[in-house]
């Protein structure tokens, strides 16, 4: 018998307040004299900031509220993630942006690329240029040159020297964290999944805002111990046998978990979050046997993002995940105005159908709640379809 948990794991209470708390602790860090480097994307090599003695903090915004401010400058029919990020930046409403000494941008999609030009007018920035692809020798060489340029820029800005030893230490720290997150996500391979996808998201998302990495890791260990107990007792966040869904697509963080919530409210279990707000950044570790800067560059360039062309890695990864997590379906989320993920949705749909005969539900939406009812209908129809109605 499966017991569906009415209560979430007790250890979640730490993660529930982690982000609001972080808004205060960043001020503390600054008072202690810590330098902060904000970054937007999973391509940003956080090891560089850490090796320079700075705290890396994620700035990618997933709140509806600053969008109106963002729209004062940016086109309305733009990706909400960019409008939200920019709205936070110009209004000083985001403490993390406000307290970033240096902001690292990455020329991923065109919208972000141009937004960084505007941002550079009022914030110290370094923008890394991404190659259009990640596979050719020329692309790799180009990216490695960008890695060196970024290292130089950070060194100059913070007036430090980034040593290989410092990089190696940072790699060790972040790799340990990546492995920890992989272990945590692995818990959702169980049926019933001992925690919800919404809670997994919350943990992964709070990671971006926790400045005491060791304390954070301890809490994750605590959570995993509790999940072990739940598995032993047969307690799940959804019923045993519930449809198992992998969520992929654009970054959907805390504040924009609408679709994930609807999937779980409809009785399914979200067992993996492939996107950037989820596991994308934690899936690959840095090779610890190679020269550090080169190894870091390789890891980040391997990010399976739709901004890369072609981006077959994401498709192949999803097929692997379907098998590993025994998924029944895939929900692919695209923000309105995100051309790369929107077009890739078509490639993904065809590939998954071909490889695993599995239909993919593609949802195009934004940060508002206006379409929740319609999304609910789509998700329910998709689940009915997987269940054979």
């Amino acid at each position, binding site marked *: 018998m499966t017991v569906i948990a009415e209560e979430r794991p007790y250890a979640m209470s730490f993660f529930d307040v982690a982000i609001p708390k972080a808004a205060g602790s960043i001020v503390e860090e600054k008072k202690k004299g810590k330098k902060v480097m904000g970054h937007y994307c999973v391509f940003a090599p956080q090891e560089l900031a850490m090796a320079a003695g700075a705290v890396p903090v994620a700035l990618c915004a997933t709140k509806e509220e600053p969008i109106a401010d963002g729209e004062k400058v940016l086109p309305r029919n733009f990706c909400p993630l960019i409008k939200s990020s920019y709205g936070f930046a110009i209004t000083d409403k985001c403490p993390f942006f406000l307290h970033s000494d240096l902001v690292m941008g990455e020329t991923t999609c065109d919208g972000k690329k141009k937004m960084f030009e505007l941002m550079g007018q009022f914030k110290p920035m370094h923008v890394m240029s991404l190659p259009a692809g990640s596979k050719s020798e020329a692309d790799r060489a180009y990216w490695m040159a960008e890695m060196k340029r970024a290292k130089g820029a950070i060194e100059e800005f913070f007036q430090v020297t980034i040593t290989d030893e410092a990089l190696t230490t940072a790699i060790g720290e972040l790799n340990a964290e990546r492995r920890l997150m992989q272990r945590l996500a692995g818990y959702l391979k169980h049926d019933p999944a001992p925690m919800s996808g919404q809670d997994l998201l919350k943990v992964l998302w709070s990671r971006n805002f926790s400045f005491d990495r060791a304390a954070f890791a301890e809490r994750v260990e605590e959570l995993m111990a509790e999940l072990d107990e739940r598995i032993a007792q047969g307690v799940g966040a959804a019923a045993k046998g519930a449809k198992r869904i992998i969520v992929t697509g654009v970054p959907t963080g805390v504040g924009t978990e609408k679709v994930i919530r609807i999937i779980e409210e409809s009785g399914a279990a979200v067992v993996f979050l492939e996107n950037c707000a989820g596991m994308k950044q934690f899936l690959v570790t840095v090779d610890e046997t190679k020269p550090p800067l080169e190894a870091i560059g390789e890891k980040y360039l391997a990010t399976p993002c739709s901004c890369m062309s072609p981006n077959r890695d994401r498709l192949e990864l999803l097929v692997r995940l379907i098998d590993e997590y025994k998924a029944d379906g895939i929900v692919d989320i695209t923000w*309105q105005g995100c051309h790369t993920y929107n077009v890739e949705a*078509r490639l993904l*749909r065809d590939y998954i159908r071909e490889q695993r005969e599995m*239909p993919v539900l593609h949802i*195009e*939406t934004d940060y508002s709640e*206006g*379409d929740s*009812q*319609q999304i609910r*209908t*789509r998700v*329910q*129809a*998709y689940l*009915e*379809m997987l269940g*054979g*109605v």
Partner: protein
Amino acid sequence: MESKGAAATPACAPAPNQKAPDGATIVAGIDAGSTAVKLVLDDGNRRSVWQRPSGWSPGETARELLQEALAAWGRKREDVAHICGTGYGRVNLPFLDSAVTEIACHARGAVHLRPGAQLVIDIGGQDAKGILVGATGRVLDFVMNDKCAAGTGRFLAVMAHALGMEVAEMGALVPGEGLPMAGIHPHPINAMCTVFAESEVIGLLNQGVDRRAIIAGLHQSVARRVAAMVARLGASGPVLFTGGVARNAGVGAALEKELGCPVEVNEQSPFAGAIGAVLIAREKAAG
């Protein structure tokens, strides 16, 4: 199957003298759409369809309709073994035994109305959907419009208003030999957004463009939008057009042109969702 209220006038009184054999198990399917509530009662031998405009509360309308339909059959709520609800308003129907999405219901209803159908195009008040169905009416895949109204019944209703006519009048204008639309070429409507398309229509009227050409253009615009959407499903078999807009022969003709294949309409097409719901209710009642 008897159809009550399939006529152009949407309001419909349940017909008297339709007593079901006493003791037979009744099941009901309700499609609470944004424009109309449709109800199907089925006692195993006979099936009747009722419908009424949704009004301000589709839930309230559905409850009344069910009461009146049962009264017309001389039966009570207790005689109904299972009520399956679908449509936009299904979440506000507390008396349902089960709720199933309109996608599954239209698929089921469509295959019942047109065995062998492979693609169902359902255009309702708020939504346009393409559903790929298997032989038993199982949904294999589907696509649906985003929150924009282009390509839906709502789009046509707004345009009919701009043209100073009823939607039904507009829908009755079918291209064809000897018909009022003979020799009329669609005037392209370029705006995708309903609000802009409305201004475009008003502008065209002011320029003196033939209303019939505008109407044909509007039908073409809906058809193009829907055809582009369903193309993703890659269907190749028979196509059945369902939902309220299936009454609009102009859209049906435009769809045939855009898809390059016949698009069938059954006289029960507008009720496919409720029919699907009653079929599912019958299965659930049987356990």
